[in-house]
């Protein structure tokens, strides 16, 4: 049953990859979407099955077969669905299928071979992602982990004819390698420590021991795992690949780099909540990294001009939020935000995709504006998404983000809370800068007004989306709003971004944090019940905090953050609607800061100087020119020379005359016989 969930997309991948180029687009695309929908249905069934049980044993397992059995180390290929996983699979399959549907329209200009390739990658990614979240032990998870990495590489570099795209793909892959390396080390360490890789066993092995006071095995292991997470989930210091990943098709950005893959790190930490919560140092590191990533990404996002890059940075910053939550031990809150974020970020990306689609590959927001009339659906959905992410009360982002902030505060990390608040201000600001620059104001692009609709678009098939400004020339065609498939996805997601939040309305607002309660068992070691309760108390604050009279505090924090959100929006409105020049003035006022932000704190350059160049130089000058050429080649050639020299001597023996050979043989016989006779 569970195995079916990743199986359907895999099937889709196989079909599309093998005979996709022979299938017509509608079939290959429809097939892929169908596969996703099927696995979504299966996931629903499974989740229902899980939900219908008592909270204590809310999990279903399926062991396909014993994968590795060497000595006493036995590793099964096991899938397990528990509350956490169920949330994940629902998000992945649900949003995944929406994005598939969206893609059928978005990628329609591709040649059918490319089209099939795209969808096969997409399906493969979904399959691996599901394996990742379903895996019941580190190794299975790691399989998915690497798989999604691979698919992300393939999809980012989907338009590999573009150098920037293929470079971006390589960058993502290599940066992830670093993280994965650490992740493997962490896994091995965990195995050495506990002798098992199964999450539940580890948890129940960890539970009895108290939190690690000093910096020890657990901390190191968790830290390594966390580095892996930073790789996948684009946190400092390994976030650099995500903005470049926007070279890929927009739906890919939505699916992989907003909704699913980048949350793998968060998921992994949540999956090992017990383990992490026993390593306070690591938790602190996680929290700090998360907060600082959030802030930094926000600041960068403020000045970017590429619509997708802005969204990318906002993704990074939201991920920062999630890690902050994880770091402060509010796992429930983190997952909650993950889940809401999936909706509105996907919505925003798809919206941006629609814009780019409409403008035939235009991505620079300075060349947009005034699209509101032209693209009503896109506009409204995009607006809702922005409101949600900005944390306007009543929308999805509001609940999750505030819960995170509240938990942060409640756990006594006031500084982090301040950073969080600041970030949410930034979030609101840059999101609405985006909205206003894109949709409001006068149009700064040569697309005609919607009213002169009699003109036909000249060369529809000739252009590809996202192929940069090279398509500016035919950008003058009719300004068309999102086609039905895209529109459908957008609308559904918009609704999602409104409603998703109500899954976890905090007690302070009279709700009873359903999601938190639902997730709670996943963050506890089930087997040891006595400790489990205490774990719930300690870890599952998501549900717990409400009782302890903190309701008032929570309410006041909510008010604060809502105000902040409103202020941010207002600020954006003031600057980018009323007085555009203020922005330029500000930029002129602090040129250094502006350039710093514009160039993303020069992080790429720093990495390049600190890591890439040294390695290149060492490998080129030292390894290649030095060792390879002189030592290795020298050895090989030397051997050859020696052999050559000797053979030129010995070949004189080979006269080719049979009798000569026989003679030498005969001489040998006589000599040997003589010797034996002599002694």
């Amino acid at each position, binding site marked *: 049953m569970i195995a079916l969930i990743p199986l359907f997309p895999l099937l889709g991948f196989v079909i599309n990859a093998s005979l996709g180029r022979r299938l017509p687009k509608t079939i290959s695309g429809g097939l892929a979407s169908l596969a996703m929908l099927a696995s979504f249905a299966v996931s629903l069934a499974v989740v229902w099955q899980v939900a219908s049980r008592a909270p204590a044993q809310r999990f279903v397992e399926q062991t396909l077969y014993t994968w590795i059995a060497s000595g006493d180390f036995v590793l099964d290929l096991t899938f397990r669905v528990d509350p956490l996983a169920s949330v994940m699979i629902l998000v992945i399959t649900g949003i995944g299928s929406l994005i598939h549907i969206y893609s059928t329209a978005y990628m329609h200009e591709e040649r059918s071979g490319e089209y099939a390739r795209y969808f096969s990658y997409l399906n493969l990614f979904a399959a691996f992602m599901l394996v990742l979240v379903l895996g019941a032990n580190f190794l299975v998870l790691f399989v998915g982990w690497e798989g999604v990495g691979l698919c992300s590489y393939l999809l980012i570099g989907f338009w590999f004819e573009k150098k920037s795209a293929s470079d971006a793909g390589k960058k993502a892959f290599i940066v992830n390698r670093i993280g994965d390396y650490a992740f493997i080390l962490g896994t091995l360490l965990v195995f050495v420590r506990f002798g098992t890789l199964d999450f539940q066993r580890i948890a129940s092995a960890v539970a009895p021991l108290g939190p690690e006071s000093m910096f020890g095995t657990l901390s190191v292991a968790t830290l390594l795992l966390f580095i892996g997470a930073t790789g996948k989930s684009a946190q400092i210091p390994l976030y650099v690949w995500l903005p470049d990943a926007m070279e890929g098709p927009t739906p890919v950005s939505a699916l992989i780099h907003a909704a699913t893959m980048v949350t793998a790190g968060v998921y992994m930490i949540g999956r090992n909540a017990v383990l992490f919560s026993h390593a306070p140092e690591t938790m602190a590191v996680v929290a700090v990294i998360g907060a600082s990533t959030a802030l930094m990404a926000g600041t960068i996002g403020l000045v970017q001009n590429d619509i997708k890059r802005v969204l990318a940075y906002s993704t990074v910053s939201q991920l920062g939020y999630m890690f902050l939550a994880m770091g402060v031990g509010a796992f429930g809150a983190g997952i909650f935000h993950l889940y809401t974020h999936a909706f509105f970020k996907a919505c925003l990306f798809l919206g941006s995709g629609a814009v780019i689609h409409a403008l035939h590959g235009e991505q620079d927001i300075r060349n947009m504006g005034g699209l509101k009339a032209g693209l009503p659906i896109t506009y409204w959905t995009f607006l809702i998404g922005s409101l949600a992410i900005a944390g306007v009360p009543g929308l999805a982002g509001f609940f999750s983000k505030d819960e995170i902030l509240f938990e942060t505060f409640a756990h006594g990390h006031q500084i982090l809370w301040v950073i969080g608040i600041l970030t949410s201000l930034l979030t609101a600001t840059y999101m609405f800068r985006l909205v206003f620059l894109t949709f409001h104001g006068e149009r700064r692009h040569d697309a005609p007004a919607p009213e002169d609709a009699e003109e036909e678009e000249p060369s529809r098939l000739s252009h590809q989306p996202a192929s940069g400004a090279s398509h500016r020339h035919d950008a003058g065609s009719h300004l068309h709003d999102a086609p039905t498939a895209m529109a459908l996805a957008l609308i559904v997601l918009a609704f999602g971004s409104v409603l998703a939040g109500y899954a976890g309305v905090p007690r302070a607002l009279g709700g009873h944090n359903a999601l938190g309660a639902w997730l709670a068992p996943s963050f506890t070691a089930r087997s040891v019940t006595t400790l489990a309760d205490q774990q719930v108390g300690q870890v599952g604050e998501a549900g717990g905090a409400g009782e302890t009279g903190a309701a008032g505090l929570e309410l006041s924090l909510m008010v604060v953050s809502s105000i902040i959100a409103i202020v941010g929006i207002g600020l954006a409105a003031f600057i980018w609607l009323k007085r555009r020049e203020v922005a330029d003035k500000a930029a002129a006022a602090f040129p250094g800061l502006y350039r710093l932000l514009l160039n993303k704190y020069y992080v790429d350059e720093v990495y390049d100087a600190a890591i890439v160049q040294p390695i290149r130089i060492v490998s080129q000058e030292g390894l290649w020119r030095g060792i390879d050429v002189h030592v290795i080649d020298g050895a090989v050639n030397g051997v050859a020379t020696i052999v050559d020299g000797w053979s030129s001597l010995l070949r004189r023996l080979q006269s080719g*005359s049979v009798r000569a050979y026989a*003679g030498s043989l005969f001489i040998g016989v006589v000599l040997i*016989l003589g010797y034996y*006779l002599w002694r």
Partner: protein
Amino acid sequence: MPETILFYLFSGVAVVASALVIGQRNPMYSIMLLIASFGALSALYIQLDAPFVAMAQIIVYAGAIMVLFLFVVMLLNAPQEDAAGWDRTHPLRRSGVGRFGALLAGLLIVQLVWALSRATGAATAVGARGDVAAISSVRAVGRVLFTDYMFAFEATSVLILVAMVGAVLLAAREGGR
């Protein structure tokens, strides 16, 4: 006593014939002489109470192998040893080489005789042990051949097959059927 005479007679024939074989320039004569030598040898085998071997010697060597040689010689219309000009330059054409070879052969004989002179039991009569009936009976030979030496026997059969195929392949004209 008569058998001693016969022994010396036949061994003499064998040795002299063989010596003439290699002293001969015409391969045809060499072959005939070799056949004679084989006949003498088979006589020696009979003296050694190995009649079956003796007959096999004649049938196989004289009757088959030598005929083969004969055919080849006739087929190639065997030339006398050619002293074609183009291979005079070859190092082995120097007469010294031949003498050296003869010298080595002589040396070998000396060594072997010397070894024999030192060997124990070389002086004991051949027929001393074992009863003649058992050794000379074909039945005994067959029994041992098909039990103890079964594997070797089969192996030789394979060898023959391979040799046959190889010979056919080698002798077939280039591109011939």
